[in-house]
């Protein structure tokens, strides 16, 4: 099958790649780009473990083809951390919102999208922003706490 050339911005840097037209963005990012923070949990857009940011929006990379990334601005947790934006991850770690850790990258990516848009979210905003991510360990209470704590840190409030 003929590969298709795509060119997109991954974690702030332009990259070019030849991808098979049937390849999912999830597999391309994990296998070809080495972005293993992007996890496969359900393959059907239900669990949110594979969440990435495309042009400022959080999307399920299992429901997207790699060719659809062409021309887009794409971020994974690796890039967020590398760019120095570690405060959300640290808030998750500090309040006890991490247990097995498999869903965690997806939650943090969704949290970033929320806080970039709304640095002062109410509990209802948090639930709305994270309803596409499933966690089976924590019961979510501390995840909500982590988002509130991250928001405080982003705003520079004393925590």
């Amino acid at each position, binding site marked *: 099958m003929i590969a298709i050339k795509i060119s997109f911005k991954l974690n702030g840097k332009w990259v070019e790649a030849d991808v098979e037209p049937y390849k999912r963005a999830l597999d391309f990012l*994990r*296998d070809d780009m080495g972005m*293993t*923070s992007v*996890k*496969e*949990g*359900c*393959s*059907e857009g*239900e*669990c949110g*473990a594979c969440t990435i940011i495309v042009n400022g929006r959080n999307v399920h990379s299992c429901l997207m083809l790699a060719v659809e990334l062409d021309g887009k601005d794409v971020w*994974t*947790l*690796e890039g967020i*951390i590398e760019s120095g934006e*570690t405060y959300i*991850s*640290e808030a*998750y*770690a*500090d309040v*006890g919102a*991490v*247990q*097995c*850790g*498999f*869903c*965690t*990258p997806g939650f*943090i990516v969704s949290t970033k999208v929320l806080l970039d848009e709304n640095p002062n979210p109410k509990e209802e905003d*948090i*639930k709305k922003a*994270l*309803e596409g*991510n*499933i*966690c*089976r*360990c*924590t*019961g*979510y*209470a*501390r*995840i*909500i706490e982590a988002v509130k704590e991250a928001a405080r840190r982003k705003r520079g409030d004393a925590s």
Partner: protein
Amino acid sequence: MRVIGKRVRRIDAIEKAFGKAKFTNDLSFPRMLHAAVVYPGVAHGVLRSLDVSEALKAPGVVAIATYKNVPNNEMGIVTKDMHVLVPVGGKIRFEADPIAIIAAETREAAEEATSLVNFDVEELQPVLTIDEALRDDPIVNGERNVAFQRKIRRGDIEKGFQESDLILEMDFETGYQEHAYLEPQSIIALWDGDNLTIYGSMQCPFYVHNDVAEVLKLPLNRVTVIQMETGGGFGGKEDVPSYIAVKAALLSYLTKRPVKLVYNRDMDFRETSKRHPSKSHYKVGFTKDGKIKAVKAAVYLDMGAYSTLTPIVMYRSLTHAASAYDVENIFVDVYGVYTNKVPTGAFRGFGSPQVLFAMERVMDEAAKRLGMDPWEIRYKNALEIGKATATGHVLEESVGAKETLEIVREISDYERLKEEVRKFNEGNKYKKRGLGWAHTIYGVSLGAAGQPLDASSGEVHVKMDGTVLVMIGGTEMGQGAKTVMALIVSEILGVDVDNVRVMQPNTSIVQDSGPTVASRTTVFSGNAIRIAAERIRDNIIEYLKSKGVEDIKIENGYWIADGKEIPFSEIAREANAANVKLAEMGWFSTPKLNFDFETGTGEAYVSYTFSTQLSLVEVDLLTGKVELKEAWVSHDIGKVLNPVGAEGQVEGGVVQGMGYAISEEIKHDENGRMLTTNFNNYIVPTIRDIPRVHVKFAESPFSKGPFGAKGLGEPSLMSSPPSIANAVTDALGILINRLPITPEEVLLKL
């Protein structure tokens, strides 16, 4: 204490929250192949022919294994009643009973080739429910569908009923629960012609070690199993990873190439274990002032096509059948029943949630009939030191049962809450609220039925820079085992938690430590590590004394020598240069338990945890939807070593128990094919569904636990389903005796 009982950050949190933690599927090896599994898609039948020739020709396919290629095709933990791959002429006993496995250059190629395997099945009538199975026509497996029985015969059951003023007889039913760990089953196997290495997501590396060696007929010292970061287990990665690992290992053995087998969610639902559906009948006698006089129960567990862990699961159903109460006359039968569905096995609680739900519902009905408050009837029958459990185990220490009841009553402001609920219900026509109690017991570790596995090893190595490496046989799957180990080492050796690294378990480094199940890791691995760390501490103290230091102590986790605080890094460097032994192994096992399996009486477990939960629910009478609004919970888990972790376990357990109680349901079609195989129709709780959870611990120390700790992994779930069912019954005034309490169920009952 420096760190024990203090609020600390998990030692693996940053690695996970930065996306750096490596799970099995994140690993890759040169020349690695990808595997796929061929399923018959028929629930019951005889495999008449199997032809892989066409599939072998498919592009990218490297090898296909059938029963002919398996060195030892018999498997099973308790009884060898299953095959690695179903042989021609053999029986297919559920739709995802594997018949062939394929290794190919890519995952897509392997999956595509599954449809090219040709086979014929002579179909048989599938047995799909416990009631159908009891007719023994047809037989699913072995000689009879009711293949296992366990019992308790204690006291005089008839006399107990004669002395009762109220006798209740009730029937209960519970459904499946899928673990829904976020990371599906994943294994990579590497056979190099002499040695086999397995990397995988698992709770029990030593099970995988034994099972793979047995199937491939390899000596154990040629097989190494390394647990990778594991994305949740909840029991679903107890025995199941063995079944995944033997497939990957067989393909690696045949191809001499690394083989990765990662399940997709659909396979994971169809092939891997679940919580047992159950049916039970309870007959319980009470005096008019609420004292339980007799408990008689018959419990049937649907174990699916193969027995796997069921005979051990049944031991827990048996020993927990009377919940957390002091009862003298007990007569319990638990049966394991074959059906043509997915084999059921370990799931957080291991056969106890089914019976705790039943018994706790009986307690509420009794309270109602006797005009007592549901809290009061529980308090009246609660266990305390000197009283005996259902199996007649007289408790000598660490019984915080009544304290958990007192704590929940207090933190919930119960009397005021009742009044609020009454007012809410007066003011609302289509929404009703209810309150429900549950008071439960949980036996710590494997108990009398699992004594050969109940010992653990651990090693502590202090490096010359003062950092510490810890090796245990217990696994971290999210529950926080690594952090608890680090806290124990930190406290004993006076080293910063941040300088302690806990390695992934490796069966070639650590001696068989039994499984990471049964809420046993804090007590077993924790004690092994405690022993090792104490030995190193003593070696250092002996050395310091030999060179003239007179007064040495570790105060609140800091070294003080002759009044001066010394950093651990300095001590380690000096001790290392003086050839002090800075590496030790700890070994922990508990005294043998006396238990009579004929009567089901005696010392069932080394210790017990006790739990109380009060749930506030709201039911929408128009939609039938049940919402858990708020829960107040107390557990006696002995000394709480890691409060943040413990609270997190309880919050997660309450919500997972809520899923079991109200939304999670596995459905099959009339041919035994599963209909619910992903999160679109198997509904696990989301962030939208959660209650406010209030947690406060009762800390009744256990003398044999490290720093007095018991365990929490499983009990955190068990109080939730019965308290929710009792709350719904309270809200609606109708009997809820079946789980899950779905909207359909509520509307039908209304």
